[in-house]
C-alpha cells in the first residue's frame, strides 16, 4: 500500500516539471507606434487567432500579453492602418515594437487594403463611442469650424441642447454630467462663443472616446458620460504641420522632433471677428470679441522604461469695449472666460507585465466681468469673478498577468478650490466699497481596481470598484461605486452585452440655459446641496459584419439619478443687472434637489473605414425629472427630453482629390413650458383687506406642456485636395442647413397689437438658417 503510494508520488514528482515546462508562460510586450511620426497608438488590437486570445494597447501605446510558450500567428490591427500579420516564436520573454502604416487615401492612389479588425462584438466594453479623429475633419460643420463635441452629438444617445450648441446631453444627463478629460485634466467649460463652438482643436487630438454607460472603474466624478481625449505627442520623423483659414478663425499646428528622444506639438487657433469689425467702429470707441486657444505638448523618451509627457491647453473668450472722451472721461468694460490645463505625466515600465503612469494635473476655469467708468474725477469700478481651480495627483497601473486578466488599478486626489463669485465694487462718488469672495476648498479622492477577465471562453467580464471620498463643510462623504460590464459571445461576430454602473458627482453646474454660457456656475457639494448619484443598467447586442467593415449595436438603458440639481422656480444664476446687490447671493438658497429617470434604446450602424464611411444612429428615449419644490412635486419631462433622434452621416472619397460628406439630423421637439392663460396677479393688502394688482402672470398646469417643433437640418461639404510641391492643400466648401429649416433656438410669448386690439402670440427665435462656409487648409 505504502509502496503503491510512493510509486504514484514518484511518478507525479517526475511529471510535474514536465507539465510545468509545457505550461511555461512568456510575456510579449512593447509599444505600437504610427510608422514615420512614431506617434504612440492607443487601442491597437494584438490578436492570436489560434488561441482566441488578445489584448489592446493602453492609452500610451503599450501592450503586454503573457502566453504559454510556442509559435503563434499574430495580427496587429488598428482602424485606419495597415494590418500586420506576423509569426512569433515565444520561447522567452520578448519585447517587440510595431510600427503601423497609415492606410488611408494617398495622393498617389487609392489604397484601401487594411482589414478592419477592431470588432465591437469582441470588446467587453459597451456604450462606448469611438470616432477616428480623421473623420472629424471630413464631417460638415457650422461655419466650417471642425468640432469634436458637435460630431459626438451626431451619435445615438448623445443630444445637443439648443441649436448650434456644443453642449452634450448623454442618456438624459445634464450638460454638467459629462467628465471631459484632455490628457488627464478635467475641462470645466468646453465652449467658445456662448456654446457655439467647442474648445477642442481637432488637429491637436490623437484619440477621442465617449463612454455613455458601463463606465470602467478608472473613470468617475460625473454621472452621465466620460469624454476622454488625448493630444498627439508630436511627430518624431520630421517637422510637419497644418494651417487653416476659415470664416471665423484661423489655426496652425506644428509638430516635429527636437532630437531623437523628444518631440513637440504646438497648435493654436484665433478668431478675427474683432479685427474685421475694427474699421467699422467710431474713432473714440473700440471693442469686439475674440476667442483663441492654444495646445502644446512635449515628450521625452528616457529609454525603454521611462517616458515623460508635458502638455497644456489654454483658451480664452473675450468681449471688450473701450470708450475715451475728450474731457478725460473713459469707460472700459469686458467679459472674459476660459480654461487652462496642464499635465505632467511619467510613464514607467516596472517590468513587461506592469505599466504605470503618474500624472500631476492642473486645471482652471474662470469667468470675469469688469467695468470701470471714470467721469468727473469719479471712478466706478466693478469686478465679478467666478472661478474653479483644481490640482490633482493621479497614479494608474496596468497589470497584465496572463491573457485572461487585464488588471487596472489606481488612485487620484484632486484639490478643488471653488470661488462661485468674488465681487468687488468701488464707487468714489458715494464712497461705497464692497469686497466679497465665497471660497470653497474641497478634496476629492478616489481609488479603484478593475479586472477584465474571461471566466469561461464565451464570456468576458470587466468588474471593478471605485471608492470615492469628498470633503464638505468640515465633514466628508464616502461612497463606493461598483461597476461591471459583460459580453457573451452568442456566435461569431455577435455578442450579448450588459453593464451596471453606479456613479457619484461632487461638483455641480448651476445653469439656466443649458447652452454653455460662461455665466453657468460651478459649485461643490455641501451639506445642503448633496452629491449627485446615479445607477445605470444597460443591455445590448453587438454585431460585426467584417466583409462590409460594419459594426452594428443595439442598446437599451435605464438610468436613475438622485440629488440632481436644478434652480428654484424663477431663480437665475445672478441677475447681471443687479450686480450691486449680488453680494447677498448664496447658491445654496437658489437650488433644489430632485431625482431623474431616463430610459431608452439606441441603434448604431457604423463604418469607420473604407471609401464610404459614416454611420446611422437612432435613439428612442424618455427623460423625466421630479422635484418636491417644482411642478407641485409631480414628475415632468426634462427640457432636453427628445423622443426620437436620428443622425445619418456619410463620407465618400471617390478618389484622392475629393472628399464629399453629408449629415442629416432629426430630433423630435423638446419639452417647453408655456402659459395657457394669464391671471390677475394680486397680492394681499392688509390695510383694507383687499388685494392690489401686481402683474398678469401666465399660468400653466404642468411643466413641459408644449412640445417644440422638431429639429432637422441637412449639411453638406466638399473638400478639394491637391498635392503641391511642399504639401497638400485643401479647399472646403460647406453648407449648413441646406434647405434653410427655421429650427427653434428658443420660444417666447409676445403681444401683437393691431387696430386697437391685442393678441398674444408665440414666437420662435431662429439663429442658423442656411449658412455657407469656405475654408482653406494646407498640410506640410
Amino acid at each position, binding site marked *: 500500500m505504502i509502496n503503491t503510494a510512493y510509486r504514484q508520488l514518484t511518478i507525479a514528482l517526475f511529471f510535474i516539471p514536465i507539465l510545468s515546462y509545457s505550461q511555461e508562460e512568456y510575456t510579449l510586450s512593447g509599444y505600437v507606434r504610427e510608422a514615420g511620426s512614431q506617434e504612440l497608438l492607443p487601442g491597437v488590437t494584438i490578436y492570436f487567432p489560434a488561441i482566441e486570445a488578445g489584448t489592446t494597447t493602453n492609452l500610451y501605446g503599450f501592450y503586454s500579453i503573457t502566453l504559454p510558450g510556442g509559435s503563434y500567428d499574430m495580427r496587429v490591427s488598428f482602424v485606419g492602418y495597415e494590418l500586420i500579420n506576423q509569426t512569433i516564436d515565444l520561447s522567452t520573454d520578448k519585447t517587440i515594437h510595431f510600427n503601423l502604416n497609415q492606410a488611408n487615401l494617398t495622393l498617389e492612389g487609392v489604397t484601401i487594403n487594411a482589414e478592419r479588425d477592431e470588432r465591437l462584438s469582441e470588446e467587453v466594453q459597451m456604450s462606448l463611442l469611438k470616432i477616428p479623429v480623421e473623420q472629424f475633419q471630413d464631417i460638415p460643420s457650422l461655419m466650417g469650424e471642425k468640432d469634436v463635441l458637435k460630431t459626438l452629438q451626431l451619435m445615438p444617445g448623445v443630444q445637443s441642447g439648443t441649436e448650434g450648441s456644443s453642449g452634450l446631453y448623454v442618456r438624459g444627463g445634464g450638460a454638467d454630467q459629462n467628465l471631459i478629460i484632455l490628457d488627464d485634466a478635467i475641462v470645466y467649460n468646453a465652449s467658445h462663443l456662448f456654446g457655439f463652438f467647442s474648445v477642442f482643436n481637432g488637429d491637436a487630438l490623437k484619440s477621442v472616446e465617449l463612454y455613455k454607460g458601463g463606465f470602467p472603474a478608472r473613470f468617475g466624478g460625473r454621472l452621465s458620460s466620460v469624454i476622454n481625449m488625448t493630444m498627439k505627442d508630436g511627430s518624431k520623423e520630421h517637422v510637419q504641420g497644418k494651417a487653416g483659414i476659415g470664416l471665423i478663425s484661423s489655426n496652425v499646428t506644428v509638430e516635429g522632433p527636437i532630437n531623437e528622444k523628444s518631440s513637440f506639438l504646438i497648435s493654436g487657433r484665433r478668431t478675427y471677428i474683432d479685427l474685421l469689425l475694427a474699421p467699422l467702429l467710431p474713432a473714440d470707441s473700440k471693442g469686439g470679441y475674440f476667442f483663441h486657444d492654444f495646445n502644446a505638448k512635449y515628450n521625452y523618451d528616457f529609454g525603454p522604461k521611462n517616458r515623460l509627457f508635458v502638455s497644456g491647453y489654454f483658451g480664452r473668450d473675450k468681449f471688450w469695449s473701450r470708450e475715451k472722451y475728450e474731457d478725460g472721461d473713459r469707460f472700459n468694460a469686458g467679459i472674459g472666460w476660459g480654461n487652462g490645463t496642464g499635465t505632467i505625466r511619467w510613464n514607467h515600465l516596472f517590468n513587461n507585465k506592469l505599466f504605470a503612469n503618474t500624472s500631476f494635473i492642473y486645471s482652471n476655469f474662470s469667468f470675469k466681468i469688469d467695468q470701470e467708468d471714470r467721469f468727473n474725477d469719479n471712478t466706478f469700478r466693478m469686478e465679478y469673478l467666478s472661478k474653479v481651480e483644481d490640482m490633482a495627483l493621479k497614479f494608474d497601473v496596468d497589470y497584465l498577468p496572463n491573457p485572461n486578466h487585464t488588471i487596472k488599478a489606481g488612485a487620484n486626489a484632486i484639490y478643488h478650490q471653488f470661488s462661485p463669485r468674488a465681487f468687488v465694487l468701488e464707487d468714489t462718488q458715494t464712497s461705497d466699497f464692497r469686497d466679497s469672495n465665497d471660497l470653497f476648498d474641497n478634496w476629492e479622492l478616489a481609488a479603484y481596481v478593475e479586472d477584465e477577465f474571461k471566466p469561461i471562453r464565451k464570456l468576458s467580464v470587466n468588474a471593478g470598484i471605485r471608492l470615492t471620498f469628498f470633503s464638505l463643510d468640515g465633514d466628508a462623504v464616502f461612497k463606493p461605486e461598483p461597476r461591471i460590464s459583460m459580453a457573451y459571445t452568442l456566435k461569431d461576430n455577435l455578442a450579448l452585452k450588459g453593464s451596471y454602473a453606479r456613479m457619484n458627482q461632487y461638483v455641480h453646474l448651476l445653469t439656466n440655459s443649458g447652452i454653455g454660457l460662461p455665466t453657468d456656475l460651478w459649485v461643490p457639494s455641501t451639506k445642503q446641496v448633496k452629491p449627485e448619484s446615479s445607477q445605470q443598467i444597460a443591455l445590448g447586442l453587438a454585431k460585426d459584419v467584417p466583409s462590409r467593415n460594419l459594426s452594428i449595436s443595439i442598446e437599451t438603458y435605464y438610468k436613475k439619478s438622485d440629488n440632481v440639481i436644478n434652480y428654484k422656480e424663477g431663480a437665475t444664476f445672478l441677475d447681471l443687472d443687479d450686480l450691486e446687490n449680488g453680494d447677498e447671493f448664496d447658491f445654496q438658497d437658489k437650488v433644489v434637489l430632485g431625482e431623474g429617470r431616463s430610459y431608452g434604446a439606441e441603434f448604431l450602424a457604423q463604418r469607420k473605414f473604407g471609401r464610404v464611411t459614416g454611420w446611422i444612429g437612432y435613439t428612442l428615449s424618455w427623460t423625466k425629472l421630479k422635484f418636491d419644490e417644482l411642478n407641485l412635486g409631480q414628475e415632468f419631462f426634462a427640457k432636453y427630453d427628445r423622443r426620437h433622434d436620428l443622425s445619418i452621416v456619410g463620407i465618400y472619397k471617390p478618389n484622392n482629390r475629393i472628399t464629399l460628406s453629408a449629415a442629416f439630423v432629426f430630433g423630435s421637439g423638446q419639452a417647453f413650458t408655456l402659459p395657457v392663460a394669464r391671471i*390677475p396677479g394680486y397680492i394681499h393688502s392688509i390695510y383694507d383687506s383687499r*388685494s392690489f394688482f401686481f402683474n398678469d402672470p401666465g399660468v400653466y398646469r404642468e411643466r413641459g406642456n408644449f412640445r417644440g417643433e422638431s429639429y432637422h437640418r441637412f449639411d453638406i461639404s466638399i473638400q478639394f485636395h491637391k498635392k503641391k510641391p511642399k504639401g497638400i492643400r485643401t479647399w472646403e466648401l460647406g453648407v449648413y442647413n441646406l434647405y434653410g429649416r427655421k429650427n427653434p433656438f428658443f420660444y*417666447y410669448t409676445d403681444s401683437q397689437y393691431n387696430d386697437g386690439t391685442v*393678441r398674444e402670440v408665440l414666437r420662435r427665435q*431662429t439663429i442658423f438658417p442656411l449658412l455657407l462656409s469656405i475654408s482653406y487648409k494646407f498640410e506640410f
Partner: protein
Amino acid sequence: MKALLSLALLLLLSSCGLYTLDNEVKKDLVDEESRLVIISFISPDSSVEVQLFQTLPLFNTTRASGEPPYVHVATAEVTIDDGSGQTVIPYFGDEQIYRLRPDEYSINPGASYLLSVTANSGLQATAKCTVPSEAAIATNATYRFTSGEFSRDIELRFEWQDISDVINYYRISSQTEIIFQNPFGGSQDTTRLRQFAIEVFTDFDRDGERVVEGVDIPGIFSNQFEIEQLKVNAFLLTTDEHYYKYHQSIQNFVFDDPFAEPTRVYTNVEGGYGIFGSYLVHNREFELE
C-alpha cells in the same frame, strides 16, 4: 481671384448673423378652456371679500388693447361654508367684489371654510382653507431709517416667539404716514407709504424658537426731505400655508426671460386658479418724532 474674393465676402456676410429670424409659431399651441380665478383672503374681524375672474385662452383670443387678458365675473353664485351650512356672498357691482361684512359672517381662528363658486357660464370652482389657530405676538418691533444713495430706506423688524410643534407661516408688512418738509416747495406734505414687499417666512429649521425677521422698504422720499412726524402701523401676520405659497410664487415669478426656470403661480382652487387664503394679524403702532 476677384470672383473668389466676392464669394468669400458673400459667405462671410451670410455667416455673420444676418439671418437671425424671429417667426410666429402657428400650430400645436397649448390651449385650454376658460377657468375661474378666485382671489380671497379671510381673517377674523374682516369682511369676507372675493374677487372673481374668468381666464381667456391665451393664444387664440383677440381683445381690445388695454383690456386685461381675463374678465370679471359678476354673475355667479358664491358661497362660504364653515361646516354648518352655506352662506351666499352678495355681489357689489360698483366695486366688482363679492362681500360679507363681519357682522354678517364670522371668521374664527382654527375654523375651516369652503368657498364654492358657480358661474352662470356653468364654470365651477371650490377652495378650502383653515384659519390659523393662534396669532404670533411680537415681543419687540423696531422701525428705523437706513441711508440709501439718494433716499432713505426703512427697515422694519419684528421679534416674536414661534409657536412650536406646528408649521407656521408669517408675513410682515406696514403702513407709514410721514409728514415732511418739502425743500422744493416749502410746504408741508403728508405721504402715506405702504410696504410693497411681499416676503413671507416660515419657521422651517427654527420651530419653537425666537424669530427675528424684518423687511426693508425702499425709500421713496429724498434724503433732502426733512421729516417732521412719522406714524407707523406695523403688521405681523400669521398665515395659512396657501397664503404663504401663493405669495411666494408671485414673488418668484419671472417675466420675459426665455432662459429662466419656468415659474408657477400657486393655487389651491379646485377647477380654477387663484387663492383662498387666511391669516391672523397682530399690529403695533408707534410714532417717531
